[in-house]
């Protein structure tokens, strides 16, 4: 027996033959296949007990109810809640992906940090809370000692009227600074329109579900507008078998958005001319006597003056020339709208979070007034703000009393901007143009101005003149990259916060989000941070913040809800609230004691009032005339005030009004013309929003990148939509890289040829081009805000972001 070559081969052949009748090859094949499904980096939820926590999503002003599914303490899925009145079970893709914002450590700050690298580099070093609060407290105390308290400014993106925004404003006032700024929001424009025309302070409350004709002026009704869960549900209902054909939806927009392409009718008007279309419709409605005579005759003021102006200046032909919409289309639209039982005109471009134009919204709201849609079922309801308990008065000392009386840097509230709350562009320009910044310390709350302000990077440049910037963001967002100090907030799934009134909702609803998981890191609820900071500063500042923590503030406010002895805190989901409201019956509260109410509310609960008294046109308007004002008394007063101070400017050009003093208090079309050579910049840049791309201060969860098509995001490039005609005129084809350039700068994108894009325009999505966040977000695509000219809407002073003259060149 010798192991020679031949025998060795025999041994091997025997071995191979033998192996085939053992399980080894077959089992191994199977196991290797399974092994490839179990790479260690494939995330698998841990084993454990399933449970769930209910809360409210605060990622956008929609405030949908969410249910977070957990395995032990690990959150694994976010779903819509069915026991929440706003969104019957649905939520948007951004809300669904929210867990990445919680667990992705590259996206968030784990503990307080101070900057160690150059600004914008994102290099920070850990510090303790004590040290962080000490640094800021001492800086503010130092400024107070010098009597230079106005050198502290805050920019706040928390929803207006929320406890957080009240605390931030209070903190500024208590330490003695008038420079409390808010990032522009649609809420502000809505409130301004209600104040001007109705004298009311409640939000815009669209009774869409009860309407039979929804005329949307650019509102992305199924693309994130209002509470996305509510809107998608409403749309499904309008399109359901039993209501099909009974509800008409018309979309006015320069681009065939998803909403436009699913609407019954799409009316493409030139960007920014929505007001002219509304006036053209008003012309037809007035001239043909289609308006609601009860309402217009009995409950409005200024109709005579305004209507003769509209008859004179906005015939369908004139409006057609401005908007590019055929006059016949305007006529038929106006007739169909006015002849419907419950028509409603809705505004709020895109997701309806970015500000609108005051005059434009007044024009659109006038259509609601003409058809008697104010406080009518299926129209725009006039509501009171929530009966929340107000916070106690602020305690001032000598320093803060003098400080708050100093002039605001942004001139909001002056005769130049009489009804503006804050004007970020004036603020930024003042800092940018001054030799030495008047602002020493900028506090950034719940906002991300570097990314979201449509000002061609003006604010970002102004930051370099501000010596000390403090971010209170939970995330490594674009603005916090410029911060010197970071005092991180919890993410929305770890904290208590409130949604005061879901955007656009037709009935009062107040809800409180609660921690669905214990905070993962050493972060702190921003409300608690402010209170602690105030206590550290001491004196009257501390006295203005008598609470132990933020929860106590919320509890204090909720007391007002209890005292009102109205509303419900549970919802069975048997009947939608808009149906319950039709009965106009008062309801008995379903809570007995305040503790009972607070118990339910503070556990991701809500308080709502499914009761509305429609009509009552004689008592709801709080204007000087007690009526709905087509000619706004408040605007007239503002204009008179301005004229008194600026006699050299009788045309009101300084207010941004081009039509002169005669019509300045009317809802009218005001063209905002950029001071640039139209020949050099022949195209119009129009930003748009997508439901699967977060365009606000918080970026999309990175998973959502995977929902982008190859003509929306390709590797690092985002796309601009251009009409084939415009593209051939420029000699560019699908996928070509181009530069879009305005006087403020240029961005590089690729071309997506789209027949639904209006010729002559270029449509760029908002939400890309971020500089912070993680590797999957940073540097993806371009941000149109970087090249938008900082122009101002007349009177409101808010930015005009919806049209910018640009030129296009091949890259």
């Amino acid at each position, binding site marked *: *027996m010798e192991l020679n070559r031949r025998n060795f081969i025999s*041994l091997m052949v025997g071995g191979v033959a033998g192996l085939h009748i053992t399980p080894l090859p077959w089992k191994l094949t199977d196991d290797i296949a399974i092994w490839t499904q*179990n790479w260690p980096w494939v995330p698998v939820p841990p084993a454990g007990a399933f449970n769930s926590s209910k809360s409210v999503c605060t990622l956008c002003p929609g405030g949908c109810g969410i249910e977070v599914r957990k395995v032990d303490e690990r959150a694994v899925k976010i779903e819509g809640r069915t026991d929440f009145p706003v969104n019957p079970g649905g939520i948007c893709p951004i809300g669904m992906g929210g867990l990445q914002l919680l667990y992705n450590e590259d996206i968030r700050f784990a503990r307080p940090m101070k900057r160690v690298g150059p600004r914008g580099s994102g290099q920070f070093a850990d510090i303790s809370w004590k040290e962080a609060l000490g640094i800021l407290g001492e800086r503010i105390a130092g400024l107070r000692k010098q009597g230079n308290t106005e050198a502290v400014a805050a920019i706040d993106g928390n929803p207006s009227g929320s406890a957080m925004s009240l605390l931030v404003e209070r903190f500024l006032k208590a330490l003695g600074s008038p420079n409390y700024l808010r990032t522009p929001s649609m809420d502000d424009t809505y409130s301004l329109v209600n104040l001007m025309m109705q004298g009311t302070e409640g939000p815009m409350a669209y009774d869409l579900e009860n309407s039979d004709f929804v005329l949307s002026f650019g509102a992305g009704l199924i693309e994130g507008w209002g509470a996305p869960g509510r809107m998608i549900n409403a749309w499904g209902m309008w399109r359901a078998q039993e209501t099909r054909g009974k509800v008409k939806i018309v979309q006015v927009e320069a681009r065939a958005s998803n909403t436009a392409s699913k609407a019954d009718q799409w009316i493409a008007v030139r960007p920014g001319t929505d007001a002219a279309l509304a006036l053209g419709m008003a012309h037809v409605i007035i001239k043909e006597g289609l308006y609601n005579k009860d309402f217009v005759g009995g409950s409005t003021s200024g109709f005579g003056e305004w209507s003769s102006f509209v008859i004179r200046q906005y015939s369908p032909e004139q409006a057609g020339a401005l908007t590019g919409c055929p006059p016949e289309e305007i006529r038929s639209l106006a007739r169909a709208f006015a002849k419907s039982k419950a028509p409603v005109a809705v505004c709020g471009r895109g997701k309806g979070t970015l500000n609108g134009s005051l005059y434009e919204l007044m024009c659109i709201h006038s259509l609601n007034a003409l058809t008697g849609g104010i406080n009518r079922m299926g129209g725009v309801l006039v509501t009171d703000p929530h009966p929340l308990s107000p916070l106690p008065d602020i305690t001032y000392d000598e320093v803060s009393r003098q400080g708050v009386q100093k002039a605001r840097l942004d001139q909001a509230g002056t005769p130049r901007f009489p009804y503006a709350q804050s004007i970020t562009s004036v603020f930024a320009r003042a800092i940018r143009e001054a030799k030495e910044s008047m602002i020493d310390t900028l506090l950034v709350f719940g906002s991300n101005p570097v990314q979201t302000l449509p000002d061609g990077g003006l604010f970002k440049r102004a930051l370099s003149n501000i010596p000390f910037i403090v971010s209170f963001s939970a995330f490594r967002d674009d603005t916090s990259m410029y911060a010197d100090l970071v005092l991180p907030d919890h993410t929305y799934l770890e904290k208590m916060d409130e949604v005061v009134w879901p955007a656009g909702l037709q009935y009062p609803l107040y809800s409180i989000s609660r921690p669905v998981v214990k905070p993962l890191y050493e972060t702190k609820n921003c409300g608690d941070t402010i209170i602690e900071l105030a206590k550290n500063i001491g004196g009257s500042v501390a006295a203005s913040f008598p609470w132990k923590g933020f929860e106590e503030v919320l509890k204090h406010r909720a007391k007002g809800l209890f005292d009102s002895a109205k509303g419900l805190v549970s919802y069975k989901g048997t009947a939608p609230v808009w149906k319950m409201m039709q009965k106009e019956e008062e309801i008995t509260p379903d809570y007995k004691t305040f503790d009972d109410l607070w118990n339910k509310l503070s556990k991701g609960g809500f308080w709502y009032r499914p009761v509305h008294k429609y009509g009552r046109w004689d008592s709801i308007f709080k204007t000087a005339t007690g009526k709905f004002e087509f000619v706004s008394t408040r605007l007239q007063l503002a204009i008179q005030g301005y004229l008194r101070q600026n006699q050299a400017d009788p045309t009101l050009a300084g207010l941004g009004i081009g039509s002169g003093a005669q019509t300045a208090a009317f809802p009218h079309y005001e063209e905002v013309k950029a001071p640039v050579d139209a020949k050099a910049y022949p195209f119009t840049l129009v930003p748009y929003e997508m439901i699967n791309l977060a365009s606000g201060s918080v970026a999309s969860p990175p998973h959502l990148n995977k929902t982008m098509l190859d003509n929306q995001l390709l590797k690092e490039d985002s796309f601009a939509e251009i009409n084939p005609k415009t593209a051939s005129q420029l000699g560019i084809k699908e996928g070509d890289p181009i530069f879009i350039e305005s006087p403020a700068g240029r961005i590089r994108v690729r071309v997506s040829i789209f027949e639904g894009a209006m010729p002559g325009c270029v449509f760029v999505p908002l939400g890309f081009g971020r500089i912070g966040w993680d590797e999957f977000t940073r540097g993806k695509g371009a941000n149109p805000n970087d090249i938008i000219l900082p122009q101002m809407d007349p009177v409101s002073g808010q930015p005009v972001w919806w049209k910018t003259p640009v030129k296009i060149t091949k890259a």
Partner: protein
Amino acid sequence: MEKTKKPSLRAWLEGGGFFIAGFIGALVVGWVIFPMVLYSKQPQPMNFNHALHLNPEKVDGIEGKTDAERCLHCHGLYDDGTFKGIPRLSTCMECHDNPESPLGKTPEEKAFMDEYVAKNKEIPWLAYYKQPDCVYFSHIAHIKNGKLECTVCHGDHGKTSALPDYEANLLTGYSKNIWGKRISGLKTNTWDRMKMDDCAECHSKMGHEENNACFVCHK
């Protein structure tokens, strides 16, 4: 050219011997050594006597008329129907609530009391029957709607007095009970194996072929 030498008979026999040696060697490797190498063997953190706990004569408080009901007493369902799986310590502590006074006299219970109940520490059980993450399986659909007995899939596990060692496939990480205790993958009882084909076989037999669609389990 040199003529090739024809092998002798002896050489043929010798070669045949080597062939058989290789053949038998491979069988030994494949059937004996391979399974030993492929699976880990880990004892459970402590013993658990199913037979004892399911005996109402010996244990007070095990409720339920049928075997399945008695199993569900500890391996219960949540309100929403999801299966609780291996009971947590809190379930054990419904009876074994005081570390100072054990309910029996076994040293195992004493160790359990000291190690887990007193320290309020979860027992790190190793699950024999955990399906991979890509598989959706609903217990309630099978035991309530399908009226299956626990034994159909889990055999006599509920009658054992000692927990067997847990064996995990070193390549895949799956428990040996999924592939089946027999390395051949052959089975005689319904509970011998828990692979996809076994699910499908039973579905078909019960007349629920529609449940063999991919997305029923791989959601």
